């Protein structure tokens, strides 16, 4: 195209040169006419050239436009493909998720069923518990009634049994005092037996009452100076038995939180026992000491007395159980049972070791709080 245009302008130039050269040829008028025609033709050519140029430019623009559109379309279709792929992927994802949800749903249904079953079981268990609770409350009321009955029973025993016993003991002693000249030795011995046995029965009743009283009593704990408590028990016993020759040894380290009144009773019983069962020895010796073990404080009372046979150990702490006859050693069989009850109430332990004729050692262990 550019070549054509250049050619065209060359033709025009050539024509103009030719016309210039022709000046000398034809007449001036003729020359003028020719020149006018040529100018018109030239203008026409020029116009046609311009139009062609314009059209060419327009074509170029159109070309550019369609090129751009094509590019756009390509880009768009690429995008669509990408989008399609994405949708397909998402669909796949959704299907996968749906499958997962279906599984989860099934699982939930199953779980729900299990829950319903469990709920039903719980309802039954609840009903059972309610029933048991009402049974327990009923049982507690029954026990309360039984307890009250026992209380009034022990009150009765304490009040009503002791009075006739006092009469038997008292009047027998009145007989012995006022009419002793009229009785021979045999009668006096028989009357002495009545006095001794009624006295013994009184002690039994008293001990039994003490035992039941401790059971009812509330443990009120205070810090106890144990050495002082043991010393006061030994002091009281020395006053009670002024002829006592027993040697006391041992040392107590560490105090304890316990019910003072109850713990004093424990040591009165333990040390009295030690005195009683070592009383027939030439050199009676009692050791009262303590040591700590696994968060517990252990107190022990050890004597060198007659001891006991470990074969009968399981009877040792039972109520009214005795490992010695009343002829050998007097007793009611309540002392150790009482100790056991008191120490159990304190969440402690009590045990013993012994060898016949070599002595016994009683231990009580209480938690260090």
């Amino acid at each position, binding site marked *: 195209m550019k070549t054509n245009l250049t050619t065209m302008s060359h033709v025009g130039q050539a024509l103009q040169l030719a016309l210039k050269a022709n000046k000398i040829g034809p007449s001036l008028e003729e020359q003028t006419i020719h020149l006018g025609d040529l100018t018109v033709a030239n203008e026409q050519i020029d116009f046609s050239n311009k139009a062609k140029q314009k059209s060419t430019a327009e074509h170029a623009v159109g070309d550019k436009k369609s090129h751009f559109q094509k590019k756009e379309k390509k880009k768009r279709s690429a995008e669509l493909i990408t989008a399609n792929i994405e949708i397909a992927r998402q669909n796949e994802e959704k299907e996968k998720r749906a499958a997962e949800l279906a599984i989860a749903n099934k699982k939930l249904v199953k779980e729900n069923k299990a829950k319903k079953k469990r709920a039903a079981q719980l309802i039954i268990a609840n009903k059972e518990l309610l029933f048991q609770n009402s049974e327990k409350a009923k049982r507690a009321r029954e026990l309360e009634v039984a307890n009250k009955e026992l209380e009034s029973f022990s*009150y009765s025993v*304490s*009040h*009503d049994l*002791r*009075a*006739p*016993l*006092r*009469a038997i*003991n*008292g*009047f*027998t*002693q*009145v007989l012995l005092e006022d009419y002793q000249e009229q009785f021979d030795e045999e009668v006096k011995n028989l009357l002495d037996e009545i*006095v001794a046995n*009624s*006295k013994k*029965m*009184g*002690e039994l*009743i*008293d001990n039994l*009452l003490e035992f039941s*009283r401790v059971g009812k009593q509330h443990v009120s704990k205070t810090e106890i100076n144990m050495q002082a408590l043991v010393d006061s028990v030994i002091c009281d016993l020395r006053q009670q038995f002024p002829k006592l020759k027993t040697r006391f040894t041992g040392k107590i380290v560490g105090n304890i939180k316990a019910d003072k009144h109850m713990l004093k009773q424990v040591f009165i019983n333990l040390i009295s026992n030690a005195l009683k069962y070592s009383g027939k020895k030439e050199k009676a010796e009692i050791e009262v000491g303590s040591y700590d073990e696994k968060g517990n404080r252990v107190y022990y009372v050890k004597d060198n007395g007659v001891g006991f046979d470990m074969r009968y150990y399981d009877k040792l702490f039972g109520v009214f159980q005795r490992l010695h006859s009343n002829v050998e050693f007097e007793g009611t069989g309540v002392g150790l049972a009482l100790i056991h009850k008191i120490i159990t109430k304190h969440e402690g332990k009590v045990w013993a070791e012994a060898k016949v004729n070599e002595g016994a050692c009683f231990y009580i262990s209480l938690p260090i709080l």
Partner: protein
Amino acid sequence: MPNRDVQILLVEDNKADAMLTIRALKKHNLANNLIHLVDGAQALDFIFAKGDHIKRNIENKPKVIFLDLKMPKVSGLEVLQILKKDERTKFIPVVMMTSSKEEKDIVESHHLGVNSYVVKPVDFEKFSKVVTDSGYYWLEINNAPLQ
């Protein structure tokens, strides 16, 4: 000091206990002016000069009352309550004498203002000592207001 015709008022429903108590006191010459009544109702009539005892002078107060706790009609605790609430009788020393070492009886008696609480031992030797010690203390050692 007014000449009292009653020194000890013994209120005891148990015949044996009463006999043994009186015997023990007599042995120590403490039962010269002793009156024995067998229940709380009689005791109240005597003290306030009513009923069978209407002719008695109410001002003639016993030096001490030995009161059994468990008695028919009016119990020892009820007698104690009435005596300690009445201006005319509240200063008369009352010794509760009972077989029962029940804590609730001990506490209740002291709430009502008992002057002494004595448990009667089964063994007669101990019983005699407890009774005569009490008699001796309240008659010979203690000083109560005259009014």
